[in-house]
């Protein structure tokens, strides 16, 4: 009996394990191995170089720029996404007629692909005919070269990404806000609590685990950003929007410096692993909160 179960389990799990083994574990191990190699233009290893790729990477100005803008991007994107989505979730949690329509609209960006979002925003940032230039002109403010100014280009990518992320974050946060028992608010109303007090004493504590959870999920996604950069700025001007994954792509498939790209991949992996552990922990805490 037990033997039969073992065999059946193996048959059921094998397809997934083969796919994960071939396309996740093997490439991951290979990436770790490739950082010790000098490679030719085809990506074939020529010579063992130890940690040289790593050392060179951390001494490279362009990588330092890349990692700095990635950090700024990730932090700004997560904070703005969570703030906007939380505000929308609280607003849309009210029981009102027609709220379903608003909830659908607020979560709609969840279905929009990176390419579509980036092209829509590419037009908004167009220096001649785009929306933002028109608004600035109407307000008699100086025009901004959105995608070719080092600071504004990053702002543009952050804005596009926040917009894309709001849908998912909103939907998760809405669930958390709606799960708060209404009698808590009724007691608060009886005691004449202000809106601010209700938010601070009831809504925030009740949704705090979910807020952190969404924050970390957004952080992890932001570290993996690629398409917005590819379509809006191509990493420029002068590496100022060269986010980590875009840098990996460039080094691997344009510059053909596989060792360097692999070292960057390892940096990305370590970062994502740390945040995924945090996410698992937060998720446990979230589950515990809602169970108890």
């Amino acid at each position: 009996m037990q033997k039969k179960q073992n065999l059946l389990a193996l048959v059921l799990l094998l397809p997934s394990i083969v796919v994960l083994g071939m396309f996740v574990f093997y490439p991951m191990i290979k990436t770790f191995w490739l950082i010790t190699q000098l490679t030719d233009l085809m990506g074939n290893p020529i010579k063992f170089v130890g940690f040289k790729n790593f050392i060179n990477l951390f001494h490279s100005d362009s990588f330092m720029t890349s990692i700095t803008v990635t950090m700024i991007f990730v932090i700004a994107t997560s904070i703005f996404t969570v703030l906007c989505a939380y505000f929308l979730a609280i607003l849309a949690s009210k029981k009102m007629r027609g709220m379903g329509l608003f909830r659908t609209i607020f979560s709609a960006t969840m279905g929009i692909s990176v390419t579509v979002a980036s092209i829509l925003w590419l037009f908004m940032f167009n220096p001649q005919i785009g929306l933002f230039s028109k608004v600035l002109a109407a307000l008699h403010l100086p025009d901004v070269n959105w995608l070719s100014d080092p600071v504004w280009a990053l702002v543009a990518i952050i804005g596009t990404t926040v917009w894309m992320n709001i849908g998912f974050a909103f939907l998760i946060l809405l669930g958390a806000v709606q799960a708060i028992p209404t009698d808590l608010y009724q007691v608060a109303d009886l005691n004449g609590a202000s809106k601010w007090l209700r938010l601070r004493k009831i809504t925030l504590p009740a949704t705090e685990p979910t807020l952190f959870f969404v924050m970390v999920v957004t952080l992890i996604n932001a570290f993996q950003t690629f398409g917005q950069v590819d379509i809006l700025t191509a990493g420029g001007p002068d590496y100022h929007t060269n986010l980590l994954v875009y840098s990996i792509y460039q080094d691997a498939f344009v510059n053909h410096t596989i060792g360097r790209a692999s070292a960057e991949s390892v940096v990305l992996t370590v970062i994502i692993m740390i945040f995924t552990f945090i996410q698992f922990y937060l998720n446990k805490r979230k589950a515990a909160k809602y169970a108890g």
Partner: protein
Amino acid sequence: MQVNRTKQIGNYLLLSVIAIILMVPLLLGISLSLSSSSSISQGNLFPQKLVFSNYVRVFTDTHMAQFLLHSLIVSGVVMIGQLVLSILAAYAFVFLDFKFKKTAFVIFLSTMMLPFESQIIPNFNLMRDLNLLNTYSAMALPFLASAFGTFMIKTSFEQLPPELKQLSQIEGLSHFQFITKVVMPYCKISLITFALYSFLTNWNMYLWPLISTDNDKVRTAQIGLRQMRAQDTASNWGLIMAATIIVVIPTMLIIFFGQKYFKNGLTSGVIK
């Protein structure tokens, strides 16, 4: 009462303003897709006269129809693959007792913390060595298994009442009959949710299709859009926006009709 009325109107007003602001990029895109190029180049954000020629031209002057078909094939294959493989694996984790169950579980779990972006170089080399670049296989194979899907479906299988399992044993149902006649119908909602989610994710995939293909024979719609942007944004905003709107329609439909699935599915089953 009067105060409440005013307050309510205020609420609706605020909600509407925010909804419109959020939708501005999309609304502008639709507006441009219905404008003639002369109207756009004069700086008009709204069409002076409604034209549908941009939509016609997407199908006559570009390969977008072909790219949409490629996207449909790849997304469909990956969706079915992920669904089947995840159901099988989830079944083993929930209903079977076997050696190394913990180890297998950790193997699945650990794939969720390894970002695909850091595996692209070996994956590309592997596909090149297997002579699979520029094929549907190259685009689909790496994603056929899904740890996320396995966990989501596993969570839903765990909700199955134990009596149903006992009853099936008494009835003498085989494992296959139990899966297809009892478990899958009972967990229908979660399966649909994951299928929709999977299709959406695959349809929107960008980095891997970009790397693993370099010609029109298998190129997906997302990469087709990128190509259009690279070729001729300056003159052809109307055409590009029409193509963009066409590409976003399938996923928008999924979001509109699948919203209730997503909300329940993603909040309860998500990465537990």
